């Protein structure tokens, strides 16, 4: 059984017990425990079930590489799935449940998959679920959804109760990893005066040296003290280097109070760091060995076993068998023995056995078997014994050794993730059987120089003395590359380990047959076995990237930290090629999963995206505005009165406006000032119409196209004076069109004297619309002349309207007598209030965007985004009158000369009038005779705008119909999604006041 030892445990404080809940059970641990160590101390070796076969799984590792021990953590707004027990620090009240089982961890129905495993081989999704097609929807998908998946998805209605933040940081040298290599590299770099940041994902400094021995007594404590005393050094624990990106950009993920939820402040902080140089001192990860039953709870990495003993005073078992292909695992045997527990056997796959450490183990009376292997581990929910065989053979069992834990070591792989994220290349080190960074091919910065270097074990320097020297050199090199004068530090004098070399063991035993290979796990989390990778290779998956996706090897939340090297070695072996020829899959950030909320940072709720408000916003809000988002603006869709529906409100607003007087807040319209001696010439290029001939004091409706000929924006252009134009754009188009103008001015016609300013927010604008609009403006008084002749249709004047500094445009989007009045934004609300008061006697009615849309549709006016979708040219919309024939050039003119745009064989704008007066559904298509290649009805047009017109008391619509204008009077069919076929007659698009008498009064 696993239990708490009487002594030891550097990290725990035995005077401070902590209570937590696991699957509803109350358990005890100590402050300083991780969830994993506390569960082990309570003899809870089995921690979850596997993804595919629902096999019982226990903890394998002690750090962030852990694949098995994942838990649902917390409740309600604090719930989070897939939390690793090995990196979860224990706190009072912690509550977790195990994942991926039903009905319980101990008894699980899904384990039936385990017995059907031979019917679920690699790629079984692709093979099994192809035919018959309907079975996917009704049988396979529901089955897979029920049985697959790790943690539970958080409830979609529950909001995360915590807060998160982003933090920007700049440093000359950033060191990722706070083991002895990282600390030494940081110190050497900092001695040069460079600004240094060092981060460690663990709560403790020192890394593996705290378990396996420091360079000298108190080394880590001394180094940490020295660094803390330097003003140019920033130190952060519980912070992971998540990813390295172009030109020295680095993401740091700091977990501020996962370990102490009672503290105030943000939970996670995402550090967005710009580093001159990056040193990755990220250490190495131990590899599992591939023998049958290597996933049974109790089989653990050798390094993890001694971590639990030394750091937490926890023993994974009373009798720990050790299996290895290298000297390092002997340290575990020695630690287990020193803790007073039994090591029944050390199984060393190397025929020649180990070096100095092996001698020490033998000296302690531990039995060592060289050239041997584990044929099989027995046990279900817990290891019972190991069956030994010869490593060179096929697995004939020589003897069975009883034990309740197995410590395995297949060698160590440097953590090269951060080096590789941004393009650093790797070399295969034959002697050490590992990929390590190729320092001649680092990731490059903007100057073409390397900006990442690795230090210590991460660089392949597994020996402590060599690692320290490597780290010192990395610190010096990084500081110099960042522009500082650096020199090396004085290092402790260390003798080199006299370890015997590792011998790669990718399969155990070497000649393991199919039965053993089917129980030898590579990827614990995704349940990928040796036999799966071999099958993929036999089926032709030669590329490691393809094999990964076919077998799902390395695709789980641990991204194959334990499995990738073993998997690609098996693949290489099966393909009969060298490991470097197979290569690795791509390392991508983040190193371990980071919370989505930390990526969002503060951008949530109200400040997710700032809302733009007009000066009249508060009035709308107080008067029943039913809001509609338009770009970043909020505009009233309509104003609700009493119990009426939005539809009723829109009809009321239209009737009132057409009968007497309506007010529209038009402040959101884009307002660009184009000024300069060449302004007219410039606008002639931007608009399809001629703008240079516009007289000061006059307005003209204009169209803008892209260089590809398609309609992009429209609006009224006003000539303010000889040199200045005011270009109105659509609400959503102001910034885009401003950018469009700047682009052409700066990059094509840079010698033209034109200046553009976006004055959208400097002006508030009110549409004063309806037969009584002139009367209400005249009531306000002032010195402006807005009489019929004083300000004719499409005229502009400015001056005092009452007390306001007004620009008045007589333009009519609703087809009534109407004016748009613009005043400085600061006067906007006062103008609105004045119009409201003055309009009372006329029954003034504010109207929203929907009434505006319906009224313009009644007049047959187009709307950018309704009648246009980026594939429509002005000619399609019958807007030939707005295209100058005199101009030699405008943006889009050449494109419109192309034959298919000149052709009449296009969908063109017409009005549509339903035969029975009903409203055609939005987005409906007009069907034609016959079917297309997919067996769908052919189409001959579509609706672009469709409304109920209260003015005409019937449905009206506009649409693009194949050769529409030639087919007036024809009735075509628009099938709705409700099964109804809407029959509509093709008519002229102007439904209301075709002669324009209403606006010319």
């Amino acid at each position: 059984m696993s239990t708490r030892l009487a002594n030891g445990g550097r990290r725990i404080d035995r005077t401070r017990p902590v209570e937590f809940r696991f699957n509803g059970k109350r358990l005890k641990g100590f402050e300083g425990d991780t969830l994993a160590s506390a569960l082990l101390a309570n003899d809870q070796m089995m921690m979850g079930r596997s993804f595919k076969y629902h096999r019982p799984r226990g903890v394998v590792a002690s750090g962030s590489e852990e694949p098995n021990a994942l838990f649902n953590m917390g409740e309600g707004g604090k719930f989070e799935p897939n939390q690793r027990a090995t990196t979860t620090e224990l706190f009072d009240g912690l509550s977790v449940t195990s994942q991926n089982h039903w009905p319980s961890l101990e008894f699980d129905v899904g384990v039936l998959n385990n017995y059907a495993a031979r019917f679920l081989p690699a790629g079984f999704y692709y093979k099994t679920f192809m035919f018959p097609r309907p079975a996917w929807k009704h049988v396979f998908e529901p089955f897979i959804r029920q049985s697959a998946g790790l943690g539970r998805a958080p409830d979609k209605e529950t909001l995360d109760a915590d807060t998160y933040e982003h933090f920007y940081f700049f440093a000359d040298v950033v060191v990722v990893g706070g083991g002895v290599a990282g600390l030494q590299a940081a110190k050497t770099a900092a001695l040069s005066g460079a600004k240094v940041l060092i981060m460690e994902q663990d709560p403790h400094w020192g890394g593996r040296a705290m378990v396996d021995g420091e360079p000298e007594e108190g080394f880590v404590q001394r180094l940490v003290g020295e660094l803390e005393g330097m003003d140019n050094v920033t130190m952060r624990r519980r912070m992971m280097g998540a990813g390295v990106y172009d030109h020295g950009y680095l993401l740091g993920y700091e977990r501020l109070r996962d370990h102490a939820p009672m503290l105030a402040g943000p939970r996670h902080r995402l550090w967005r760091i710009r580093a001159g140089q990056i040193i990755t001192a990220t250490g190495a990860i131990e590899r599992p060995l591939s023998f049958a039953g290597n996933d049974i709870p109790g089989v653990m990495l050798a390094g993890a076993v001694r971590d639990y003993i030394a750091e937490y005073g926890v023993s994974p078992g009373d009798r720990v068998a050790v299996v290895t292909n290298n000297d390092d695992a002997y340290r575990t045997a020695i630690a287990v023995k020193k803790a007073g527990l039994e090591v029944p056997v050390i199984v060393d796959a190397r025929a020649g056995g180990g070096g100095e450490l092996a001698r020490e183990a033998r000296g302690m009376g531990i039995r060592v078997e060289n050239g041997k292997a584990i044929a099989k581990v027995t046990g279900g929910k817990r290891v019972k014994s190991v069956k030994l065989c010869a490593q060179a053979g096929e697995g004939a069992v020589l003897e069975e050794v009883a034990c309740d834990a197995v410590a395995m070591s297949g060698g160590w792989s440097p953590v090269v993730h951060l080096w590789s994220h941004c393009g650093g290349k790797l070399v295969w080190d034959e002697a050490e059987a590992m990929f390590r960074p190729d320092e001649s091919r680092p990731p490059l910065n903007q100057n073409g120089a390397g900006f990442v270097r690795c230090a210590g074990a991460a660089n392949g320097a597994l020996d402590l003395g060599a690692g320290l020297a490597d780290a010192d050199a990395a610190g010096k090199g990084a500081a110099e590359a960042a522009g500082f004068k650096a020199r090396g530090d004085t290092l402790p004098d260390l003798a080199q380990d006299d370890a015997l070399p590792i011998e790669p063991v990718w399969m155990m035993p070497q000649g393991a047959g199919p039965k053993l290979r089917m129980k030898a796990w590579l990827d614990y989390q995704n349940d990928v076995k040796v036999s799966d990778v071999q099958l993929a290779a036999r089926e032709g998956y030669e590329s490691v990237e393809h094999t990964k996706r076919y077998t799902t090897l390395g695709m789980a939340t641990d991204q194959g930290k334990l499995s990738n090297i073993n998997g690609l070695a098996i693949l290489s072996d099966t393909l009969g090629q060298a490991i470097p020829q197979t290569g690795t899959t791509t390392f991508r950030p983040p190193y371990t999963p980071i919370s989505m909320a930390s990526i969002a940072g503060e951008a949530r709720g109200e400040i997710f995206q700032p809302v733009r408000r007009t000066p009249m916003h508060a009035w709308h809000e107080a008067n029943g505005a039913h809001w509609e988002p338009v770009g970043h603006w909020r505009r009233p869709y309509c104003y609700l009165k009493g119990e009426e529906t939005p539809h009723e409100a829109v009809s009321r607003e239209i009737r009132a406006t057409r009968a007497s007087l309506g007010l529209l807040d038009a402040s959101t319209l884009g307002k660009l000032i184009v000024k300069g001696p060449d302004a007219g010439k410039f606008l002639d290029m931007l608009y399809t119409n001629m703008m240079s001939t516009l007289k000061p004091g006059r307005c003209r409706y204009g169209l803008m196209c892209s260089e590809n000929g398609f309609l992009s924006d429209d609006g009224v252009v006003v000539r303010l004076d000889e040199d200045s134009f005011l270009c109105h754009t659509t609400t959503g188009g102001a910034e885009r069109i401003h950018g469009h103008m700047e682009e052409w001015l700066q990059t094509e016609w840079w010698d033209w004297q034109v200046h553009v300013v976006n004055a959208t927010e400097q002006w508030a604008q009110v549409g004063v619309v309806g037969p009584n609009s002139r009367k209400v403006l005249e009531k306000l008084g002032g010195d402006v002349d807005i009489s019929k002749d004083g300000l004719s249709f499409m005229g502009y004047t400015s001056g005092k309207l009452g007390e306001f500094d007004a620009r008045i445009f007589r333009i009519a989007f609703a087809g009534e007598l109407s004016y748009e009045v613009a005043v400085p934004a600061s006067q906007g609300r006062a103008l609105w209030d004045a119009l409201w008061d003055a309009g009372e006697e006329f029954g003034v009615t504010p109207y929203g965007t929907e009434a505006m849309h319906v009224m313009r549709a009644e007049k047959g006016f187009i709307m950018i985004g309704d009648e246009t979708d980026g594939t429509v040219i002005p000619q399609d919309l019958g807007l030939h009158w707005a295209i100058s024939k005199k101009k030699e050039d405008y943006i889009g003119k050449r494109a419109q000369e192309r034959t298919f745009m000149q052709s009449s064989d296009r969908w063109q704008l017409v009005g549509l009038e339903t035969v029975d007066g009903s409203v055609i559904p939005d987005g409906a298509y007009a069907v034609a005779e016959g079917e297309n290649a997919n067996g769908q009805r052919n189409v001959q047009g579509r609706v672009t705008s469709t409304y109920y017109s209260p003015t005409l008391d019937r449905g009206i619509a506009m649409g693009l119909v194949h050769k529409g204008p030639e087919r007036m009077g024809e009735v075509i069919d628009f099938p709705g999604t409700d099964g109804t076929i809407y029959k509509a007659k093709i008519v002229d698009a102007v439904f209301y006041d075709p002669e324009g008498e209403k606006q010319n009064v």
Partner: protein
Amino acid sequence: MLILECPCCGVTGEETEFHGGGEAHLKRFGPGSADTDFENYLFMRENPKGVHLERWRHVNGCGKWFHVARCTVTLEIFGSYSAQTLEPPQEIKDAISAKRPGWSWRDFS
């Protein structure tokens, strides 16, 4: 997250301050031009593995367009220069030549 220098305001900033605008030094073909010329101008783009000349705008800064000479493989920046020019200035060409001898891009080398 590239680091670029705006030649107009002199600011060295990171990519979030800027916005890419595609290939530089396009020659506009207007009304009356041949179909192939217009097609090349509007649609055909260089896609080099190596030296590339491209347009950027300092959109969250001074607002100016400029050109950047960059390696699409290593993301190395050779230099940035004014957008108001028909070809890269000699010092930019020299900077590219120093790192990528024998380079060529469209008609430039």
